[in-house]
């Protein structure tokens, strides 16, 4: 029983970690909050659904195309909305509201394009519990955790070992200096949004078989992922991931052992406690002042 709760907690945690990762990337790159990550999750899930279930394309192709499309969506979001607003000197609050407006737009768009029902995304890796080492485990869940971890590792590799990744990290620490050294800062910012959207797509595709696909599925994720990112340490990629997993575990355990109605209160209360006493997050990240 405990193991099941643990696994469910990890699965949920991994989703929150992917969501948190997206927020964290964007915050470290530009010091901005965003509320549209959850909707990128949702779009990823829907596009994958369309390709995999409706058009019956092989899963791997559906996955790759979904990631590609969301990459473009993220890039466009930055180019069309965020970048221009920043150039007009908009403050943080304006950007937050703009992303909320975008979220409403995408949610409505999804409802118009796909409808308002909850769609069933068939399990890719097998949703029948199998026996492993004397315990019954659902392969889908293990695969989900596995793939998510691989993605996080790949992101880590990209950020630390490639030239582009290093340029992005440089730009996020000091825009002016990076610019002077030849880094195309607006492009790296756009790339950050694109990657964040792509990460959300991964989460959406992995989430779909377990929780179903519906237009409003992103709303809770946005909030919780954002909260997880802050709890873990907002500008800190690894803190965000840890925060996400912590949140997933916290929510699942309090849902099982306390009551499912109060699971959300527990997580938000934890959020408030962290914000009041550890504003830089558990893993201590620098607070970026909006220029």
């Amino acid at each position: 029983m405990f193991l099941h709760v643990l696994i469910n907690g990890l699965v949920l945690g991994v989703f929150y970690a992917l969501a948190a990762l997206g927020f964290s990337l964007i915050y470290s790159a530009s010091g901005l909050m965003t509320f549209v990550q959850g909707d990128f999750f949702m779009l990823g899930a829907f596009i994958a659904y369309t390709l995999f279930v409706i058009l019956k394309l092989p899963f791997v192709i559906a996955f790759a195309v979904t990631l590609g499309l969301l990459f473009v969506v993220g890039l466009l979001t930055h180019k069309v909305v965020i970048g221009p607003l920043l150039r007009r000197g908009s403050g943080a609050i304006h950007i937050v509201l703009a992303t909320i407006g975008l979220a409403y737009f995408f949610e409505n768009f999804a409802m118009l394009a796909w409808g308002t029902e909850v769609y069933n995304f068939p399990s890719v890796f097998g949703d029948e519990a199998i026996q492993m080492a004397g315990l019954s485990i659902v392969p889908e869940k293990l695969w989900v955790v596995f793939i998510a971890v691989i993605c996080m590792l790949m992101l880590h590799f990209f950020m630390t070992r490639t030239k582009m990744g290093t340029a992005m990290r440089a730009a996020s620490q000091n825009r002016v200096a990076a610019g002077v050294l030849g880094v195309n800062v607006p492009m790296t910012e756009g790339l950050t949004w694109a990657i964040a959207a792509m990460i959300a797509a991964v989460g959406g595709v992995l989430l779909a078989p377990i929780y179903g696909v519906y237009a409003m599925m992103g709303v809770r994720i946005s909030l919780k992922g954002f909260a997880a990112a802050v709890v873990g340490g907002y500008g800190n990629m690894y803190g965000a991931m840890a925060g996400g997993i912590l949140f997933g575990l916290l929510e699942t355990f309090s849902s099982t052992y306390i009551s499912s109605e109060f699971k959300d209160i527990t997580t938000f209360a934890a959020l408030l406690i962290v914000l009041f006493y550890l504003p830089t997050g558990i893993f201590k990240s620098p607070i970026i002042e909006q220029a």
Partner: protein
Amino acid sequence: MADLQLHSGQKNGRAGRAAILLLVVALFLAPVVLHSHLYVIFVLCTIGIYVIVNSGLDIVYGYSGQISIGQAGFYAIGAYASALLSVRLGVPVLLTMIAGALAAAVVGIIIAAPATRVEHHFLALVTIGFGEIVWLVFQNGGAFTGGADGVVAIPPLKLGSLEFSGYRSYYYVILVCVILALMVKASIIDSRIGRAFMAIKYNPQASAAFGVDLVKYKVTAFAIGAFYAGLGGALYAHLIWFVSPETFTLNQSVLFLTMVLLGGAGTLWGPVIGTVLLIVLLEVLQGFGTYQMAVYGVIIMLILFFMPKGIVGGIEGMFRKLKVAGPV
């Protein structure tokens, strides 16, 4: 704030005061003129309630510079407190309304005290978290709060032998509250306290260097904003005689903030104009059916693009340009 026309009325003088008087008279006559259009009167009632809530939010955000995306939480507390006290305990509605506003203010103080330690994004998140927790508490409050079904059969306001159970009569109650709320706000912003709020917004370091206790004033601003929201919530509860959690979500908080930004934060009339425009807009959007949310989302973005300082701010900006360009 160098709010040329709409701040303390200094520049206004007679013209401005006459215009306001005319407006007040028109508003008092509205239910008579619109006698059969009950729905319009109802919409005017909701506009009045929102104007109160948004004026409070403006004191928190527009004047003391604190981001709050949790105003719906205080709105909910006022509504539920008034509803529960009158329904479950039979307390007279006038008292429950006051209690609702005060309850919201007290919670505002409790939340604000630690909230003053954080800024910008973190404060936004704290206020969002607060709003979510309030919603969750009412949603999961079981029989006490009515859970998802909410509280029904909320009694109307009774003053002596007068019962305000119709929109036309209740409208006057709300109108009086709006006038009082705006007068109090006008008084506050043109005072030592108002200057302290604005100093904190524009330069917290310098304001502390001149004796402004940041924590005390930030908490005060929050408490005022919460009181206004609580009052609005209580008025709301006794307008539609029903409250449920789905009214008090993050979307509602976003709506409040959008109204303030649209009209112009940090001004007396900005939240009023923003409220009127956005409520009219939402009524118009009903006609868009399934496209409502998308259009709303696009409009939010357009506002942010073209009028980041809101309508009042935009007008002021034009005046300022004219003033600087002219003979000095």
